[in-house]
């Protein structure tokens, strides 16, 4: 079960981060933004936009698979680790320096997910116990 969550969230985060980075790449390559057909054509000519859409589709299938077993409340919260992975990917790829509050927020999110991982361990142990 723990392996299922680990692999599931790893896939979800990879797809989500891939989609966000690809959207940013698309937007930069198709600049300047304008609500006209030329802008849409510039977007459609970008390979990045198709990678972004693929990322979204992959994330959708992964999320539904996770929800087959995971409770939606904690899982939805845990999926917000995406905020942290996108922050670091943006730093690495685009050189966007995260400021101190952003790093503090990222720390809180990571701490929350560690607590959620422990809570799953506890739930599993209790389920094991009640089964005798």
């Amino acid at each position: 079960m723990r392996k299922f969550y680990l692999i599931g969230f790893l896939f979800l985060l990879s797809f989500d981060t891939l989609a966000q980075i690809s959207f940013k790449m698309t937007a930069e390559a198709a600049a300047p933004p304008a609500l006209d057909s030329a802008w849409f054509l510039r977007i459609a000519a970008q390979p990045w936009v198709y990678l972004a859409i693929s990322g979204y589709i992959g994330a959708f299938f992964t999320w539904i698979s996770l929800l087959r077993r995971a409770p939606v409340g904690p899982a939805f919260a845990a999926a917000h680790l995406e905020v942290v992975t996108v922050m670091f990917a943006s730093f690495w790829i685009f050189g966007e320096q995260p400021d101190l509050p952003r790093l503090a927020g990222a720390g809180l999110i990571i701490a929350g997910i560690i607590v959620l991982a422990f809570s799953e361990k506890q739930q599993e142990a209790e389920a094991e116990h009640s089964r005798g």
Partner: protein
Amino acid sequence: MSNLVFWLWFGNVFFDTIGQLAFKAAAIAPENKLAAEGGGGLVAYWCGLVRRPALWLGIFSYVAEFLLWLAFLTLVPLSEGVLLGSVNIIVIMILGRLFFHESLTPLRLIGIGLVALGVAVVGAF
């Protein structure tokens, strides 16, 4: 916050919540499970899933949420907009408990609370 901004904000939280609950309901629908266990496996599960109205309600909610989000961001700076995410986390936690009887142990409450706080801090500054 002007009236319009409030309703765009409310609509965004509303559709995000409906979307997540609908996806959860579709994912655990007993019909899909029966199909998957009936020998069809994963293919039967996904074929059953596309016939669930809840799945399409979820997809519709996502599209509605996306459009409301765009409208919201034209009126409010992104940094204030991100606070929305924290509210969604808490609302979905409460409704997961109400609709799917998900247990809220102290550890889960602390973990979800920390994530919601972290998302708010990232967005607020």
